[in-house]
Structure formats: C-alpha cells, structure tokens
C-alpha cells in the first residue's frame, strides 16, 4: 500500500483570508479518509485543491507520485461527489451516469453495460430513463456516486455528501458508502463537519481548525487520545479539570481537583511540559454510584441536570470545586437512574484520563 495522495505544505489564500494554512497529509491507497472540522476550517478548500478546482498559493499536491501542478480538473485521476450533487438537470439518469464516458471512446454497448453496472452498484437499477428532476435527494446522491465511480478514479472526493439527507437516510448511506468503498477498493476522501460520521466511516481522520491539521489519526485514537483540548471537545464531549504537576520523571504525577493524586502514563500527556496541566476525561469513563456505596476513590457530588437520550442518559454533576462534570451512562439492564438534586458518588476510570500541558 503506497501513498496515493500527498499534500505537501499547501497554502491557499483568498485575498486576506488563509483558507488552507500549511497542510501536509499522506493518504494511503484504498483508505477511507475523512477531513473533519467546523465550517470555515478549510476542509472543503483542501478537497477542491486536490480536485484541481483551486490552485495552491504555495505547496503541491501529488497523486500517485505525480505532481498535480498545472493539471486541470478534467485531467486529474479524481472524481467528486458534490455537496448539492450537481446532477445535470437537462439529462436523465442514464445520461448523467454516462456523462464522463463520452471522452473514453468506449462503444455504445460497452457504455450501456457500464452504466447498468454502475446503477446496480448504487442500487438504482432500472431507473435509467428517469428524469433528473424527478429524483429524490437520496437518489440524486446515488446518481452522483454512480457517475463518478463509473470512471474508476484513483481517488473519489466527497464534499459533505450526506449533509442534505434526513437522519435515517444519512445513517443508511453512511454504511452503504462504507460498504461501497470496500467493494470497489477506491480511495475515498470525505469532507464532513459531522464527527460521528467521520468516526464511523473512516480508516483515518484529519481534524482541521483554521486551515491547519490539528490531529491526524485513526478514529479510535482521535477519540481516546486527542492531542489537544480543542480536538477533544470537537470530537465528542470531555470534562476538563485543573491539575498541578508533582513529578514528571517516568510517568506524570499530578495533584488534581476532586480526584486527588493521580498517575498518568507518558503516552497520555500532550503539549509542552509545564507546571500545570489540564486533565480531560470522557463522559462515559465516569460512573455514577449510589450515595450509600462504600469503596475506594469515590467522589461525592450532586446531580444538577439530566438529559435522556434513549439508549444513554447524560448527567451534569457538580462536585466540590468543579461546577459541571458531564457523565454519560448507558441505560442497560440493572442501571439505576438518578434525578436532579440527588446526592450521588462518582467513580472515574483514572486510566483513561488525558493530560494537556498548558
């Protein structure tokens, strides 16, 4: 598996605004890769730089070890699924899907066969003659996919392709896209602002803020080992607690609020070394136990807010010096539920704490 797409120190500015501010990425062949970030972070611009719709102010994009400098979008081995799908309104489904084949000099029978295969791949068999204007959002999405995949690109670029769909359809398309990617083996680069989407679909994710890549990792590492407070709070939720460093020889020894003295493995410490740190813990790594429980390392607190989500319940707890601590609890068999104002105790999984130097 070689590096298929390489972005080398790319900058792109529009007037005064630096949309992409020095990004380097290596994307391996066959990966499902996501560019994740809030709107305006430069992820779409980066995708458009790879597609060739924008030209970098400086830096270069390589695809398959070939520099893309000066190569127009129509000559790049990339195809794109646009956010609004960009289905040609004056053509029917079949003509849309076959659009790019025109330049490939395939004969008519071969073209028809390829179109049928592509439509079958995306689950639109038999809709060949349907007018583009008569398609639903989900169908347009599939036509856009078929139209791009039929050309067998080295890289498929997807610009927030699911954001216009309703929740149910979006979740269905997420798993379909994932299966499709495995089936065709083409490298997918997905732009999304939805962290859930990025985590569930991707092999690797690059989180972007302000035109820079903040962290590039597998979904699991991104969630479990975010390298900054910003990434940690963008991907899911995290409660932050202040701490003082006592000793940092082998592992980090920290005197923290509410949890007292804790030891943190070096691999879970991020940022430049300093005197004080911020400790982060995910909501599901803390458990609520009844006030009456007796065991080590319990911290007492009081429930100030409850949000019920069906399969989980989120509690906001205040304890000691910490105003709000977020806790997520699975509503599985035997799990007690608590109400606002109730006095409870907390047991945190201290091995899962991360330290960010400040």
């Amino acid at each position, binding site marked *: 598996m070689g590096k298929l797409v390489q972005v080398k120190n790319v900058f792109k500015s529009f007037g005064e605004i630096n949309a992409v501010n020095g990004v380097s990425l290596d994307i391996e062949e066959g990966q499902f890769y996501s560019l994740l970030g809030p709107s305006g972070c430069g992820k779409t611009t980066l995708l458009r730089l790879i*597609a060739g719709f924008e030209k970098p102010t400086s830096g270069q994009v390589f695809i398959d070890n070939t520099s893309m400098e000066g190569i127009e*979008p129509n*000559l790049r081995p990339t*195809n794109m699924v646009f956010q609004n799908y*960009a289905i040609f309104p*004056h053509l029917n489904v079949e003509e849309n899907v076959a659009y790019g084949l025109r330049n*490939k000099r395939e004969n008519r029978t071969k073209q028809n066969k390829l179109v049928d295969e592509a439509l079958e791949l995306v689950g639109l068999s038999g809709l060949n003659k349907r007018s583009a204007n008569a398609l639903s959002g989900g169908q347009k999405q599939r036509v856009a996919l078929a139209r*791009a995949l039929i050309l067998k690109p080295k890289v498929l670029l997807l610009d927030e392709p699911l954001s216009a769909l309703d929740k149910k359809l979006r979740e269905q398309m997420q798993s379909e896209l994932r299966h499709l990617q495995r089936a065709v083996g083409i490298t997918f680069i997905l732009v999304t602002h939805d962290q859930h989407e990025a985590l569930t679909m991707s092999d690797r994710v690059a989180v972007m803020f302000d035109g820079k890549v903040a962290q590039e990792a597998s979904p699991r590492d991104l969630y479990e080992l975010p390298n900054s407070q910003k990434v940690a709070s963008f991907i899911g939720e995290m409660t932050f607690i202040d701490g003082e460093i006592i000793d940092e020889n082998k592992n980090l020894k920290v005197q923290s609020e509410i949890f007292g003295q804790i030891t943190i493995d070096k691999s879970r410490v991020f940022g430049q070394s300093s005197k004080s740190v911020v400790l982060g813990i995910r909501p599901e790594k803390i458990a609520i136990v009844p006030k009456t429980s007796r065991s080590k390392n319990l911290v007492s607190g009081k429930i100030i807010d409850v949000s019920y989500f069906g399969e989980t319940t989120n509690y906001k707890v205040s304890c000691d010096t910490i105003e709000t601590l977020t806790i997520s609890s699975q509503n599985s068999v035997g799990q007690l539920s608590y109400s606002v104002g109730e006095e409870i105790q907390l047991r945190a999984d201290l091995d899962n704490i991360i330290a960010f130097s400040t």
Partner: protein
Amino acid sequence: MVRPGKFLKVFAVTYLIFLYAPALLLPIFSFNSSQIIAFPLSGFTTGWFKALLYQETLHEALKNSLIVAASSSIFATILGTLASRSSSRYNFRGKQFSLTFILAPLVLPEIIVGVSLLIVLIQLGLPLNLWSVVLGHTLLIMPFSILIMNSAFNNLDISLEEASLDLGETPIGTFRRVILPLVYPGIMASLLLGFTLSLDEFIIAFFLTGTETTLPVYIWSLFRFPKQLPTTMALGTILILVSLILLSLSEYFRRRAAKTQTSVL
C-alpha cells in the same frame, strides 16, 4: 393578497386604454374602405392588404429589415452572452465600469446614439449601408441581451460546470454539453426580443441607412403620400401582430429559462 383600491383600478384601466387605444386604431382603419382616416367608417375591405403584395419597394424594405433584424439580434446575442458570462463567472478589473458602459444605450436617447454613430462612421470614411444599421442595432440590442443572459447565467449552478470538468470534459465541451443547453432558453429569448427591437427601430436606422431603407424608414417615407395611408395602416397592423407574437415567444423562453434552472435546486 391585499385588494387594490378602486382608484388604482381605474388608474390602471385608463393607463392601458391610453397605451393601447392608438394601436387598436390601426387594424380598424386598415380594414376601412375609405382612403380618409376618419370616423365614421365607410365599409369593410381587405384591399389595402392586397395592395401590399404589389409594392416592390415595400418588399425590398422588408427584406432589408429582416436581414438587419436577424444579423443584429444574432450579433447582439453572441456578444451579450459572452459579456454576461464573463461578468457572472469572473472577477476582473473594470468589470462594473465596462458593464455600465455597455448598458448605457438603454438610457441614452436614441437620437444621440444615432447622430454620434453617424459622425463616427463618416469620420472613419465608412459607407452607409445595411451593415451600418446592423452595427447601430447591435449596439442598441446588446443591453437587453446582457440583461436576459445575466439572469440565465446567474441561475446556473456553478457546481454543474465543475462537475462536468471533474468528469473529464474539457472547458469547451462543458460549454457545449452543460452550459449551452441550460442557458438555451435565455438565448432564444434574447434572439427574439432583439429581432423585434430591430424590426421596429426607426431613429438609428434613419440616420445610418444609405440607399437601402428598412421597413420603419420606408413607412415614414410613405407619410408624404396621403393616398398611401391606408396601406400603411395595413402594414402597421401586420407589424404589430408579428411583434406581439415574437415578444410572447421571447417571454415564454425567458420564463422557461427561469423555471428549468430553479427546479434543479
């Protein structure tokens, strides 16, 4: 919807009568058997229309007018399409400035445009013929072309062009396979409106025409012969009818342009 007040209704009806009553007189008198244009009407005849068939100078003028209208509407539409394409798609220095100047004939008195063009042509030593009229009319129609094409291009989703390029099509192929089919109703609207405008135009044609006259100039020359007045009325009736048909067609295409593109999104 708020119902308009009575006064506004009366006002609107009066306005329409004032605007169209004179035009209605034309068909009435063109079927009147008397040579004198006055009420009461004396009798029904289609003789004036038949007389049109035998006026060779009229046929010559009609031919000239059709040549001018077709050429200038085509030139203006091509230029207008290019201008509005560049203004809607690209940003460049002096864009607003040049657009304002291209649109200026819309508000400039035609007589000024006519006289200035005449002076320029004479200074350049160019002959006055049908092509000088075509030049003048192209200048006159271009603003309308640009306005129609602007709305066509502004409704065109830019990602459709990008999608075409992305799918391997060249910029020229993209223009042919995506842009043109989608702005085609706008082009038709511009051609038809331009044709109508040129066909009816008198002032610029009057200044720039040489020995070959266009239809409106020919009609004007007929006024010297009171006997010819009823035939002129008949000719006018036909012109009004043709203009109405062309304008309705143009409006039909303009609306279709707006419709096909908005339904995409």
